[in-house]
């Protein structure tokens, strides 16, 4: 058992018989030395997302799930196929890829983590930071070089996100896969 305060994003806790992945765990000081945690959770069995609150010293059952390094291979409708280092294929449905589906692209080389529960793959985790190419964005209009002015850009997957105004089509950008946010332009 761990306290709510000790649980980190990415860990899995057991609640009411279901494994929940902690996507975010915010800690707040309340009054008189007490503290509370707000967690964003995802049910690894059905993909349902929820937010919960705990007192920071609430005890939670952390479970360690089997994980395996995999890379994306191809899409065979309706399954996405990944392979492990032994070239064993691991198939997973689109619904189970939920928050990473927007970053799945043909030819991607990111080393991902396949997460298993009771022998079945239940999710794929991307690295915290990935690099993707901008497929389309409007040309820079104001010549801003600070990075604070943002505009919309589209990836090859069709996913749109805000990037710095100075980014152009064909630029490679770093993306935070937890927050699903642009981090920086990659220097070539």
């Amino acid at each position: 058992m761990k306290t709510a305060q000790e649980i980190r994003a990415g860990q899995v806790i057991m609640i009411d018989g279901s494994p929940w992945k902690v996507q975010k765990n915010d800690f707040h000081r309340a009054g008189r030395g007490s503290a509370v945690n707000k967690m964003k959770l995802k049910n690894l069995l059905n993909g349902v997302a929820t937010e919960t609150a705990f007192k920071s010293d609430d005890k939670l059952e952390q479970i360690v799930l089997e994980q395996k390094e995999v890379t994306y291979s191809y899409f065979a409708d309706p399954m996405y196929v990944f392979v492990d280092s032994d070239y064993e294929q691991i198939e997973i449905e689109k619904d189970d890829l939920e928050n990473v589906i927007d970053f799945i692209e043909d030819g991607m080389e990111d080393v991902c983590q396949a997460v298993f529960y009771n022998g079945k793959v239940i999710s794929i985790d991307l690295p915290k930071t990935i690099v993707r190419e901008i497929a389309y964005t409007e040309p820079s209009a104001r010549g801003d070089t600070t990075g604070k002015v943002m505009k919309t850009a589209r990836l090859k997957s069709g996913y749109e996100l805000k990037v710095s105004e100075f980014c152009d089509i064909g630029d490679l950008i770093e993306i935070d896969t937890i927050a699903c946010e642009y981090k920086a332009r990659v220097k070539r």
Partner: protein
Amino acid sequence: MFCRIIDNFGDIGVSWRLCQQLATEYGFVVTLWVDDWRAAMRFLDPLLGSEPDIASQALQLQGVCIRHWPEDEQSCVEAAQAAVIVEMFGCELPETTLRSMAAQQPHPCWINLEYLSAEDWVAELHGLPSPQTIQGADQTVTLQKQFFLPGFTDNTGGLLRERPLITQHQTWQNEQEVLRDKLNNAYGLDSNPSLWLSLFCYSGNSLANLVEALIQDAEPAVCIIPTGKLANQLASELGLSSEPAPGKYLTHGNIQFIVHPFVSQADYDRLLSICDINIVRGEDSFVRAQWAGKPLLWHIYPQDDGVHLDKLQAFQSLYAGEAGPAKSGAEAAALACWQALNFRWNCGDGIENLWHDLRPHLPALHSHARNWQQKLAELPDLTSSLVRATGFAT
């Protein structure tokens, strides 16, 4: 409702007001379980007609049943038989009570009512579920506790506000001179100064700094301070050897300190209403001072890691309306002075000059305090929000 009395009467003060409102305005059957029976009896003393029976461990008062914290099996099981269980300020419930709650069908509605804060995260946490795994004799049951966070905005649990409170303050303030004269006569003050203060802060450096600022001030004032720890420190700061008894007043330069006996919450509200500035602390007196619609200084509960200063700034920013439209010159200047004084005082700094600077701003601060009171009064009150959260009203 479960309340652990940590120090003084802040926790039970909030709990008692909430119990009272649930019983009188909503007609609910309310039991308040308190862990420190003697402290509870001291707190309720102004409401008791006679000496409390300490041995009885149970008392029916103003529609609320007050009971000593359940320790034996029977009391713990009994405590779980309510339709709604409220743990005040995250206090731990007895294990047997939790198991009994888990065994009940349907499970009781379980609320954790947290401390008040003006910080942004409060709105994000308010209302969130908190699944709790309870290990029963035969099986494990998950109960859904709900977090309920008081606050100053409509996306939080709000503040305690009884239905007649604002009208009551208007009445008291219409009778302000009469009520002050009564106090004046009761204590036999030397004069009737124009500035009245109530002082209820934490003892220590901050009180010393405040007293120093008050006695250095050239303008006459009367300061009402509760009997006990604060009055004892005050006497020490003034160089007196004996502990001042309630009902006495101490004079130092232009300021007269009235040592006030411990009073009921209603009498304290009236006191706040007729003072020109209220120096308050913690949570209960802090909220009540805002309902009085008078300028206030807030001595926030100090925490070791300094996190209280973040909480103080969050409140100051909200109170001063920093996110809202620009203020007039006089109001902006008054609020800037108030913020500087309140913050420096809470940092443990000397405030003589800031206190001196504040006095000319009191009319503008009074006007701001009235507007703030009205703004808060437009929001749903804590008790009605709590009742809605439990599903007993829409």
